[in-house]
């Protein structure tokens, strides 16, 4: 069965673009609108791709709570080193600045979940 990947972003546009990219790469996608929903839908997922700025629960807090369960790559417009360090300390496995290049995203996902 195809590996399942959780995509957490408050932008439907980004979720759609990421889902298209991952589905073309043979993965199954589960979407969540924020960190709270992300935690609810995490079960059965091999990894999560997560935005930073979101309502209710942002990506850093999500990483703090979920990084013990699955590898997480942050996908965000934010690029500052101190924020990247925070995500890393929270247990995130990677960081990508939007707009993403589909081939870069897929290769990062393949490296992490195979």
């Amino acid at each position, binding site marked *: 069965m195809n590996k399942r990947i959780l995509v957490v972003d408050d932008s439907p546009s980004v979720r759609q673009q990421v889902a298209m990219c991952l589905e073309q790469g043979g993965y199954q996608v589960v979407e969540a609108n924020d960190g709270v929903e992300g935690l609810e839908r995490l079960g059965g997922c091999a990894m999560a791709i997560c935005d930073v700025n979101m309502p209710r629960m942002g990506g850093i807090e999500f990483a703090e709570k979920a990084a013990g369960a699955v590898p997480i790559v942050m996908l*965000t417009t934010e*690029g*500052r080193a101190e924020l990247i360090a925070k995500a890393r300390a929270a247990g995130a496995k990677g*960081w990508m600045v939007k*707009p993403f290049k589909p081939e870069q995203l897929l290769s*990062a996902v393949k490296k*992490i979940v195979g």
Partner: protein
Amino acid sequence: MTPHETFAALLSECGRALFEAYGVSSTEASRPARVEGLDARVAAIIGFTGDSLRGSLMLGMNPEALEASRQTERDRPQDWIAELTNQLVGRFKNRLAAYDVDIVITTPLVIRGERLSPVMDGDAAPLVWTLGEGRAYGWLDVEVQPGLELVERPGAAAVAAEGEALLF
């Protein structure tokens, strides 16, 4: 350059680079002499605050610009303009980091209407990017602390490269 001139230059540069990243080339941003001809039908606005400044950025588009930049057909115009604005402000924020200015940004708010055009102090004309047949409009409304001087210091704050995956 005054802070406002610097902001306008950064916005122009950020917009051009953003549209290019989505495969749409845009001509040099310019300001229209009159605002009557503006035809933005959908726009999104994001607020930001920092120690020395606060303001908002509104990005509007006519339907042609929206269509030219949209990445998937399933994407709703209001979702796409919200995300484009988010990425435009994100870029602006990352560029400001080189001036040692940090801002916190809000989530986008979408406005739909006819000939959208906010009223602003001073120069009310937006920056205009031409995307093929389409037009995108950027309004930047910033209040700065008196005496603020913006000096670019490359490397002041390290910013990750766009699009590349950084794996820890």
